[in-house]
C-alpha cells in the first residue's frame, strides 16, 4: 500500500510539473469549468422560477445535490478522466504493453497515472461550492449526516469510475470504443438530475444496473431524509458488486488482449 502511495506521489509530481509548463491551458481549464458550474446552477435556478418542487426537492436541496455532483465531477476530472478517455487508445495502439510488464497492478497504473493538475483548482472550487451550499441550507442536517454524505459522495466518485470503465472495457474485443464512450456521455445526464424525477423501470435501472443515481442523488437523499442502514448497504453493495464484476471482465479482457503489431 505504501509503495502504491509513493508511486502515486510520483504521478502527482509529474502532473504538476507538466501542468505548470503549459500555463495557458492551466487557466483555460479553470475558466471553462467555472462556466460549466454556472450553467448548471442557472439551469436549476430557471426551473425553480416556475415550480417550487422538483421530484419532492426544493431549490435549497437541489443546490446541495448539484454541488455534490460538482464535487464528484471535479474529483473524477482530476483523478480519473484523462486516464479513462485515453484508455482505449492504450489498448488499440499497444501502449498497454509497457504497463503489463511492470510489477504493479496494471489497472492501478492505467486508471490513475495521469493526474489532471490543471483540474485541481476546480476541485478546490467545487469543494467550496459544496461547503457553501451545505452551510446556507436552511434545515437541520447535523455533522454525522454531512460526514456520511461526503463519504457517500466519495463512494459515488469511485462508482462513476467503475461505470465508465465498464463501458470502455469492451474495447479489448471491439477495438473501437467511440460508440460506447458516446453512450456513457449521453447517459451521464441521468446522474446530473435528482433520481426522484424518474419513475418505473428507468429509476430501477438508475439505482441498480447502471446506478448513476447512487453517485450523487441517493447520497443527497440520505443527507435530507436521514441515514437508513438499508440504503447505505444498497449503495455500498451495488458499488462492490459492480467493481467485482468489472475486475472479472478486466481479467478476461487482459486474456483477450492481442496488443498491436510493431
Amino acid at each position, binding site marked *: 500500500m505504501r*509503495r502504491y502511495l509513493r*508511486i502515486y506521489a*510520483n504521478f502527482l509530481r*509529474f502532473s504538476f*510539473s507538466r501542468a505548470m*509548463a503549459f500555463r495557458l491551458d492551466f487557466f483555460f481549464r479553470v475558466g471553462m469549468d467555472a462556466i460549466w458550474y454556472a450553467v448548471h446552477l442557472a439551469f436549476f435556478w430557471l426551473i425553480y422560477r416556475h415550480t417550487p418542487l422538483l421530484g419532492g426537492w426544493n431549490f435549497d436541496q437541489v443546490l446541495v445535490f448539484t454541488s455534490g455532483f460538482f464535487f464528484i465531477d471535479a474529483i473524477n476530472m482530476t483523478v480519473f478522466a484523462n486516464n479513462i478517455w485515453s484508455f482505449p487508445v492504450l489498448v488499440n495502439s499497444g501502449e498497454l*504493453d509497457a504497463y503489463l510488464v511492470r510489477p504493479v497492478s496494471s489497472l492501478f497504473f492505467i486508471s490513475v497515472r495521469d493526474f489532471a493538475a490543471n483540474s485541481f483548482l476546480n476541485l478546490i472550487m467545487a469543494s467550496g461550492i459544496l461547503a457553501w451550499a451545505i452551510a446556507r441550507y436552511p434545515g437541520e442536517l447535523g455533522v454525522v449526516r454531512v460526514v456520511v454524505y461526503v463519504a457517500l459522495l466519495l463512494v459515488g466518485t469511485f462508482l462513476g469510475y467503475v461505470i465508465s470503465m465498464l463501458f470502455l472495457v469492451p474495447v479489448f474485443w471491439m477495438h473501437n470504443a467511440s460508440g460506447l464512450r458516446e453512450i456513457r456521455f449521453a447517459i451521464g445526464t441521468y446522474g446530473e438530475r435528482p433520481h426522484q424525477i424518474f419513475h418505473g423501470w428507468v429509476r430501477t435501472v438508475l439505482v441498480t444496473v447502471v446506478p448513476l443515481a447512487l453517485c450523487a442523488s441517493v447520497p443527497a437523499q440520505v443527507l435530507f431524509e436521514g441515514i437508513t442502514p438499508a440504503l447505505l448497504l444498497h449503495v455500498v453493495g451495488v458499488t462492490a458488486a459492480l467493481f467485482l464484476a468489472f475486475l472479472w471482465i478486466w481479467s478476461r479482457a487482459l486474456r483477450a*488482449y492481442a496488443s498491436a503489431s510493431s
Partner: protein
Amino acid sequence: MIRADRLSKTFRVHKKAPGFVGSVKSLFRREWVTKHAVREVSFHVGEGEIVGLVGANGAGKTTIVKMLAGIIHPTSGDSEVLGFRPWERDNRFRRQIALVMGQKQQLWWDLPAADCFLLLKEIYRIPDAAYRERLDYLATALEVTKELNVQIRRLSLGERMKMELIAALLHAPRVVFLDEPTIGLDLTAQRAIRDFLLKYREDHRPAMILTSHYMEDIETLCERLLIIREGEIVYDGRLDAVVANFADRKLVTAHLRAGEPIAASNGNLADLGDVQEANERVVTLSVPRTQVARAASEILRRYPVADLTIEEADIGVIIERIMRARGDQKP
C-alpha cells in the same frame, strides 16, 4: 532461463473487400480469417546468452517476444521464464524481466529521464544505494550522464533509446527482451548501443532475446540465431554454422595486374562458376564449395593475377535467403 514449448498463437482477423461496397457488405456479413502468427515454436535460452530472433516482417518475432514477456496469451503450448508462466504475470516474474521496444516509447515525453527513473525505482523497489550505483553505471556506459535532466522530448532519437535502455535495466533484470532496439538510429548510435549491450552482457550475464532487422546487430551481438519464417522456426543454431549449413558457394575474387595482356585461350569463365564481375581489373565468381580449388587454380593459370581472395558468402544474404524462402523451398 527461458523455455518455449510448442508455443502457438493464432489471431482471428476480419477480412473486408476493398471499397465502399465492401465496407457495407462487411457491416452485415463478416468474413473472418484465422492467421497463424506463431506455430509450435520450441527453444530455450540460457544465462548470459544473447539469442537473435530474425525473420521478415510479420514472421512472428514480436508475437513470440510478447508471449514470453507475458503481454499476450498463447493459443496453445507452454512456456517458462525464470520458473514462471509469463502470461500469469506474477509480480516476482515481472520484477526480473525487462522489455525494450524500439518502436514504442515507455518514458514520459514531457519529463526529464531522471524523473521517470525515480518512478521506476519505486515500482521495482530498488534500494537507494543500488539505484545510484546502477544509474551511474548505465548512464556512464551509455554516455548520457549530462542528458539525464533534459526533457525526453528534447533528446535525439539515439539519446532517447539510451534512456529507454537505462529504464529497462535499472532493476537489474535477469531476462531482457530487446525488440528492434536500434531501429531508425544512425550508425554511430547503433554502434554505441551494440557496444553497450555487449559490455552489459559481460558484466551482468542476463539471458537476452534480440529481434532486429539490422544484420549488423545480429552479427555483433548474437552467437546463436533463431530464424523465423511464417511463424515457424526454420533454423536454431550457432550464427557461424548458418554459413556452413546454408552457404553452398564461395566468392572467388582475382585482382588483375594492370596493363598485362589476358591470354586469348583463357576460355569461358562461366564454366568455372557464376560470373559476378569481369573486367580488365577484377574477376569475381560465385563457385560451388567443392569446385573452389579447381576454379582458383584455373584463374591463376589463365589470368595475370596480382591478388586472389576466397570469401564466404555474406551471412546477411544467406539469412535473408532463408527468411524469404517459402515453406516448401530449400533456401
